[in-house]
């Protein structure tokens, strides 16, 4: 089947509902993802730094970050900054997935080196379409892995 192992999505999202909806929509696409959800920026940083019991970041496995911006403790912008500054992580694609469409946020995230910025619209039809397309995009995109 696929030569590349299925991508692991690391999603930082403080809203349980949003996480559930995203999971639901991605599941609907039938694409083989492994999704790990974190409730805030601190949790995802702990995961990357190997400070979480059980699951930890494995550098040789392809993974992608999905970050919300406004989160308690460490926000999405801070996670993005730390990831792109760290030589071990900076190849990990980072997709911002947020309810704000403020141009300043969009600009700021791209300045920090995000790979894409996806707005979560309130309209469910548009929302599910955005997530579905993100899934399809990830399906066809190659993710750098450390050999």
């Amino acid at each position: 089947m696929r030569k590349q192992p299925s991508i692991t999505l690391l999603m930082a999202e403080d809203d349980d509902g949003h996480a559930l909806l995203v999971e639901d929509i991605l599941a609907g696409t039938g694409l083989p993802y492994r999704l790990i959800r974190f409730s805030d920026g601190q949790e995802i940083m702990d995961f990357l730094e190997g400070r979480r019991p059980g699951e930890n970041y494995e550098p040789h496995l392809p993974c992608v970050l999905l970050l919300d911006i406004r989160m308690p403790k460490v926000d999405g912008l801070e996670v993005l900054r730390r990831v792109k500054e760290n030589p071990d992580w900076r190849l990990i694609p980072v997709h911002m997935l947020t309810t704000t469409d403020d141009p300043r946020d969009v600009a700021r995230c791209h300045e920090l080196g995000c790979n894409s910025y996806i707005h979560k619209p309130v309209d469910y039809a548009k929302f599910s379409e955005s997530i579905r397309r993100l899934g399809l995009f990830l399906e066809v995109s190659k993710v750098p892995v450390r050999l």
Partner: protein
Amino acid sequence: MKLPPLRIFIPLLLLAFGFGLIVFNYKLFTRFGQDGVETRIAANDLARQQFVISLGFLGLACAGLWFGLNWSITRRANRIIADTRLMDTGQPPPPPLGGSDELAQISRAFRDAHLRLTEQDRVLRMREERYRNIIETIPSMVCVNRNGKLELINDYGVRLMRADSREDLLGTDPFLFIHPDSLPAVKERLRAMRATNQPVGTLEEKLIRCDGTLVDVEAVAAPFTDDQGSALLVIFNDITARKAAESRREALAVELAEKNRELETLIYVASHDLRSPLVNIQGFSRMIERDWKLIDSALSQSDLPGAAALREKVGVSTPKALGFISAGVMRLDGLLEGLLRMSRLGRQAIQPRDLDTTTLVNDILRSQHFQIQQLGATTRVDPLPRCHADPTMLNQALGNLLDNAIKYRSPDRPLDIHVSGRRQEDVVIYEVADNGLGIAPEHQQKIFEIFHRLNPSLGEGQGLGLTIAQRCVERMGGRIAVLSRPDDQPGCLFTITLPRARQDT
């Protein structure tokens, strides 16, 4: 040895000569006569003697006349001298000499000249007093500096500097009163003024008063030259009150900026935190809808008792309820979007320049050409005066007005839009008039309010068009207003007032 003055010497000489002639000849006459030696010769001598004696008497008469004349002239001349000296001391002038001789005329002429000079002096003094009064009354500190010394300062200045007396200040070095912070600017200005010999405009300075306190002033200075040479006139105005107002205003501006930031943060948070639950409400409504469809289809195939009745009961109400939830969420999202747009409009940088408004309006109408044609509407755009505005903002404002004209047209008559404009002093006024539904005067107050919609049933919208138009126009330093159309014509009339193009002024 000093000779007596000529006027004494001459009559004395005449007197001596007269007496000499008379006495000598008389003696001669009597000697010849007594002796009787040569009577023939004596007869001749007698005639000669008589002539000489007459000459002697004439000399005496001349001397007498001289003395007499001299005495009367000297007396009167002395009187003139005394009178003149008296007038010189400032006493009221005594009456002039009587008579009509030259001395009397001189006396009158002196007196007249004195009176005229006194009057002139009085007028000059009055004039000087008036100017002095003006300078003392000026509610500013007026100073004259000459050769690095304070030569004149008015009462106001003495009070402003809190000096005990004017004398404390006069003759001092004016630089001593200038605060070190202000000194470089003041010196620079002096240099510039010396180079051009022209007055210089206002400069804000800090002065050190005699009691050591500081005062904020604004100074203007002008060089001038008089009989004493060149000098500098400096006028200081106390701007303490203005400075206080300025610092209050600055504090307010800082506070306002702070409040604005707070508001922006609030709107930013609103856009995210208020939207997040909406995503859930909307998303999970859809999930319920999806699940409900499963239940509905299960119910339709079910033989369970009451299944049909249940399906009938919730078959309508559930989709209806979900529909309301969805519509409510979308409306809320629209309002949040509107708030965000307003907040972004507030911080968008504006770049005003001279604009050809006629082209701008025609471009907007061209973009709506299809709709205008579909409606059978007519548009008239008069040649419009140019204005000084930001193209994006003006485009937005005029675009919203034209959109509204189309949206709120009357079904009873074909739409007619008329855009006109005129220049009025420093501003241009544009008018957008239509023959649509119009706005009743009692509603005109409310139409610029955010989210306010007069006719929510008419077309889509969030009640933002006019609010945004108003915000755009006001950010460019203009005004927008709605007027009733004259002569009871249907429709409405909006005016936009903006600064006129710089090049046209």
